[in-house]
């Protein structure tokens, strides 16, 4: 067999061995992605064939007040929850890194909420945050405080969701903990010898070295918050369908409603592509910021 023939065989063999991945990718990811791009330029009510309508769906998006409302809610949630959860997770990771008894138990307890199915999480918090009977307001009552109507008040609905997000920071904590453990000990020792305090050490050593980890978590959080769906959908589906005054109506909830309730799959596809572009733009921004301020060993 010639050299080129052997190379071709090698190439085919490689393709065959990697086929489970690339076939899956083409059929389950790339194909639907391309199809949804085409559908975003169509009127497609699911039960009838798609009809090409050009960029009409995209033009309709910017004139749709509910789309703006859902986008605004999602951005607001991202702006509040991402920094808050990040700081909270970093704080917990730092505490867990300190030598203490029962550290492994605390780690397990903090990670535990992340393995609870999201529907179960929603049901738990539905009762925890109940305005009259909820555990949280009962505890506040012991201290003589009157808790808010967490899920029934348009102002408090978003805050309640941020609280639920804080409960589920276990994954982020684990990543931060790994990052903290990677910080060279000798840097801390040198800082200590130079008389640096805890705050200075954290700000001048820990934080700069952690920037790649922080940026990674930020990217993951941006993707997750812009696809936020299950918790608000489960909590308010039966009553408000988007929280009081649509205050907890998120981008993906509106996308779902358009696709499966209003039978506007073309419009929903356009929403999905705009969502993807927003996520890509924000991720690019995070990388850009990371390149400027990030730590380079």
């Amino acid at each position, binding site marked *: 067999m010639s050299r080129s023939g052997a190379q071709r065989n090698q190439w085919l063999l490689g393709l065959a061995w990697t086929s489970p991945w690339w076939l899956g990718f083409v059929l389950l990811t790339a194909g639907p992605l391309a199809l949804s791009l085409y559908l975003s330029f169509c*009127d497609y*009510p*699911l*039960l*009838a064939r798609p*009809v090409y*309508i050009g960029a009409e769906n995209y033009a*309709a998006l910017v*004139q749709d*007040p*509910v789309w703006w409302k859902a986008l605004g809610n999602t951005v607001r949630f991202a702006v509040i929850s991402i920094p808050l959860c990040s700081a909270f997770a970093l704080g917990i990771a730092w505490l867990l890194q300190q030598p203490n008894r029962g550290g492994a138990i605390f780690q397990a307890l903090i990670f535990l909420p992340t393995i609870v199915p999201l529907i179960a999480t929603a049901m738990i918090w*539905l009762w925890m945050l*109940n*305005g*009259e*009977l*909820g555990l949280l307001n009962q505890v506040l009552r012991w201290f003589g405080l009157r808790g808010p*109507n967490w*899920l*029934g*008040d*348009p102002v408090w609905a978003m805050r309640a969701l941020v609280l639920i997000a804080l409960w589920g920071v276990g994954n982020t904590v684990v990543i931060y903990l790994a990052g903290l453990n990677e910080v060279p000990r000798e840097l801390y020792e040198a800082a200590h010898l130079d008389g640096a305090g805890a705050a200075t050490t954290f700000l001048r050593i820990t934080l700069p070295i952690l920037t790649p980890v922080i940026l990674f978590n930020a990217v993951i959080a941006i993707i997750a918050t812009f696809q936020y769906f299950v918790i608000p959908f489960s909590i308010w589906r*039966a*009553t*408000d*369908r*988007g929280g*009081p*005054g*649509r205050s907890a109506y998120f981008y993906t909830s509106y996308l779902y*409603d358009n696709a*499966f*309730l*209003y*039978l506007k799959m073309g419009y929903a596809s356009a929403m999905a592509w705009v969502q993807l572009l927003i996520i890509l733009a924000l991720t690019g921004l995070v990388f850009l910021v990371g390149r400027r301020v990030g730590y380079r060993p």
Partner: protein
Amino acid sequence: MSLRKIIIITLLGVPAGALLLFGPRRTADVPCDRTIVRYWESWAGVEGRAVQELIDEFNRTVGAQRGVFVQYVSLGSMIHERLLAACAGGDPPDVAGLFAFALPQYAELGALEPLDADLPALGIRPTEFVPALWQIGVYHGRTYGLPSTPFTIAMYYNRRLFRAAGLDPDRPPTTFDELRAFSERLTRTAPDGSLQTVGFLPSPKVLNWWHWCWPFFFGDPLDEQGRYRIDSAAGVRALEWVASYRDRFGAERTQVFEQGLGIVVEGAQNPFMAERVAIIHQGPWMANFIRRYTPDLDYAVAAFPSARPDGSRPVLVCSDLLVLPRGARHPREARLFLGWLMQQPVLERLCKAHGKISPFRTPGPDFFRDHPNPFIQIHHELAASPAAFGYPKMPTWPQIEHDVLTAVNNVWFGLGTPRDEARAAQQRIDAAVAAYERLARMRCLAPVGAADAKASTRAGS
């Protein structure tokens, strides 16, 4: 073998063995020599068991003779999404249960088989049905759905709470003014001012699932083309009425009260069964829940009050529908099953088990006798009301219903005035309808005839 290995094997082996021995089994053996008719429904629990019993009977009798086997699949509340995906994917079930509001969507897009031509062969005579109920399955003058388990929505009120408030339990309110006056007398507050029991609240959270229907109680919210308008005089008055309750009982107090009610519909925490709400707007299935969870509850049923100037009592008439999705594998066998199920004695057994009314003008001799709902006759008579109405027959209805819910909620939370909310919601509705109609014209879908839509919605007229 080490102790550790024994423990691991035991921990894994015992549950696996138990699962094999006592785990779930196939509920029915599917015979290989019969044509399988797939029947998808939302019903589960008691309702699911009732329909399964009928299906078993069909499979034992007619099905066995004709070589057909019906396989029942309960999809719960997700049936709409599943059915949609199956129809879009070209593999729909042979028979399906469909929510009434979704019929125009499916019918207009050609996803359902019209049944008119088959009715004589199936032994189904539309004239035998209550007109308002038959009309629910009709769209564009064609029959796409058959009423399976119909219902009317009435006023359920707590007689014990009426007596405790000094009201005559045999004289429920008949007008909205009386409803308000009764409600105030029935409301009880705790020393800290919080609400303990309320007479009636129009909030969508207090078992008022049909928030969009309040305008019908004030007049006619449909325009000449049969389109629902929340900015109509009736629509605005309905929103003002919602706001008046909020103002009277206090926005914050009522919201905290609602939160305490929980989300349970079937269970002892249901606010009506827990005696926290004295008057509700609900359907005949309540009797099944009450008998099961609070059998001692002293309650009664009557037509819901009205604010119409002519004093007529509007009634929401609705039904689950049986449809044949287009493109199913066994349409002939599906029709055989449908014809059998729609026989009056068979269908009435199902309706009875579900606690619902009969779709037939003249129910069978035993229908009312041992019906689980002691007030079923009232529900049945309400279906014949001249002021009966159903879901507006608009293909964009799910979106409209969502916008109306937002308007009602915003008014309830004091986020906007009734007039402003009605205007804002109507703008969104108009935009959705205009966009749909433009695209429908492009698809050459026939627009719904004005008279047809209006007559269908005002099903009882």
